[in-house]
């Protein structure tokens, strides 16, 4: 019986394992090999075993500054999406009473993402730009005399862009965690005289820890690796780790890009292991 159960576990995990072996492990193994290659302006890959791609990463002051900026983005976006995502998940899970309505509201939040990111990214200019809708409204209403310049092509714009893209990734796992909470627990808490805030803080939040952890993994991983948003909304002027890698790749400097990716991978895995210490998302399955 036990043997049967574990055999079925292997069978159930097999498709995923196979997909990742073919489309992730093998290709990335190639990338790891390449990260030790040499390269030149006119020769893209020179098979070799050199360490200077890694040395370049660690010895450059730019690396540390870039990581610092990216971490800062990460922290800001994480904090905002967490609070916003939790509140909205709470609303959807506890105040919306039918599954139909919940699905409808989720769909409503998803529709903007069915217009391609390429189009949405262009649309930020007429929205936040110097002569954009927001600035026109601000000037017309007399809040400011001249258009606000930092709405677009600034770190502010990048954070807005991230919050816009990633809050949904926080909402969904937290929502799913909330839906699994036994409603009688909440009634018991209310019956015992706990206020709404107390119930939220002492009952719901702890029970949502796995959902919060999963959402955080999404947000952290995506902000750390992003290069599209930061490029468009930063006007190409704001740095990020993902962008540095994208730039190296676009100039066909594969070995240093590979080395940089490996370093990024290591850093984010460390971050996530840290997160898992607060909530082991696999333990409570």
């Amino acid at each position, binding site marked *: 019986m036990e043997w049967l159960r574990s055999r079925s576990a292997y069978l159930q995990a097999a498709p995923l394992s196979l997909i990742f072996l073919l489309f992730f492990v093998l290709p990335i193994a190639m990338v790891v090999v390449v990260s030790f290659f040499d390269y030149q302006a006119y020769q893209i890959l020179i098979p070799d075993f050199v360490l200077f791609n890694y040395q370049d990463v660690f010895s450059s002051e730019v690396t540390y500054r*870039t990581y610092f900026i990216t971490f800062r983005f990460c922290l800001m976006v994480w904090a905002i999406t967490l609070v916003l995502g939790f509140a909205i998940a709470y609303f959807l899970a506890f105040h919306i009473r039918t599954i139909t309505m919940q699905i409808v509201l989720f769909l409503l939040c998803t529709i903007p993402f069915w217009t391609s990111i390429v189009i949405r990214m262009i649309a930020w200019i*007429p929205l936040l730009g110097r*002569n954009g809708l927001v600035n026109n409204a601000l000037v017309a209403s007399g809040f400011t005399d001249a258009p606000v310049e930092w709405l677009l*092509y600034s770190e502010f714009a990048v954070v807005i862009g991230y919050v816009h893209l990633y809050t949904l990734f926080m909402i969904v796992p937290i929502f799913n965690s909330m839906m699994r909470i036994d409603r009688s627990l909440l009634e018991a808490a209310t019956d015992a005289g706990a206020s709404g805030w107390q119930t939220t803080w002492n009952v719901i939040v702890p029970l949502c820890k796995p959902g919060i952890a999963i959402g955080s993994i999404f947000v952290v991983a995506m902000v750390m690796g992003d290069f599209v948003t930061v490029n468009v909304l930063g006007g*190409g*002027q704001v740095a990020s780790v993902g962008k540095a890698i994208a730039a190296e790749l*676009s100039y066909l*400097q594969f070995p240093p890009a590979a080395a940089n990716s490996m370093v990024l991978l290591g850093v984010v895995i460390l971050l996530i292991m840290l997160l898992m210490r607060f909530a082991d998302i696999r333990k409570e399955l």
Partner: protein
Amino acid sequence: MSNNKNQTTPKGAVSRRGVLKGMAAGAVAGGAMIKGAPFVHASEPITLRIAGTGVNQFKELADKAKEDLGFTIQYTSLTSDDVVKRAVTQSSSFDMLDAEYWMLKKIVPSGKMKGMDVSKIKNYDKIVPIFTKGELPDGTKMSRQGIAPIKVSYLAGEESSEFATDPSGYMTLIPTVYNADTLGIRPDLINRPINSWAELLNSEFKGKASILNIPSIGIMDAAMVCEASGLATYGDKGNMTKAEIDTTMKVLTEAKKDGQFRAFWKEFNESVNLMASGEVVIQSMWSPAVTKVRSMGVPCVYQPLKEGYRAWAGGLGLPSHLEGRQLDAAYEFINWYMSGWAGAFLNRQGYYTAVLETAKPFMSEDEWGFWMEGKKAATDIMSPTGQKIESAGSVRDGGSFWDRMGNVTVWNTVMDEDRYMVRKWNEFIAA
């Protein structure tokens, strides 16, 4: 060999009739092949997959080629970054590559391209000598700073992955479009004459300037600016020393930290949006982008500058895997491309085509005068798709073909110190 007098000799008219006749025959044959008798031709209909930027991937060209030649042109449009990457890492995904000349420095050593046998190119002798000799039709030598096409036009042999210094009979690319680039400005927001590259860093335009973020091109614009403002001197702008790169990047980085730039752009369309929306009033720009901004009713000038132009050129090349019928079809397509209709189409976009004399018969006298000779337009100038882009009486910025191509100072480039330059450029973007 052609000289620029050819433009006015009646020879053009003769060849025009010949071309038209040939094309009509081709169209009939092509039509028959597609619609009428699929069984007569035992083999599959040919599809040519062309990978390149959208710069000259027009549906009209593909449709016309299908009509004339009978085979299908399937475009894969890519961003300029992806063109090089695609060429090097997955050349099997296309049958023809539409690349820029500077990209060749990176693509050719990978051995993924095949030399084109010039004896199979019908109008080879009529290609503008910029590409075959490195000189203008009147014999003056073109600037060789940067990757001038002549430096990379020929391969040592058909299967070689090395460039030949002299015409070898095997071409890397058959030129399709090229142009002389300069700064675009918003005259309505600047209100004074601009005549030097140095103006890009003028603090008057703080927060309203932009430069393009493709290192091979951006570094040349930056060098033009630095040289013009006396902040740097260069031995060869197209092949800088490390020290020269450092100086250039230092100037740019300081300007960036002072907030000189509103944004950097990478794709054609971004430059249009920046200019049209008024985010930027002076920036590196490409000619059709200026035309586009103007057609939207926003004033924009492609400003000729006293230091000269930065030029670029693109062309069609063959991947090394191409053979048999596909290879024959590729040659056939290239010959068609140079036979005039396509050239006229591209000239009307504001680009220049490689064989001018075959294109001329396909353009009206007024169109030719406006686009190529810098004459005042007698009637409204229309885009190939039928939109009005210039009113009667306007003159092309920078004037005639020879005024523009004759004043080229540098070409887009890949330097020997490319690795160093790109690192520095990256640091500049990250700064």
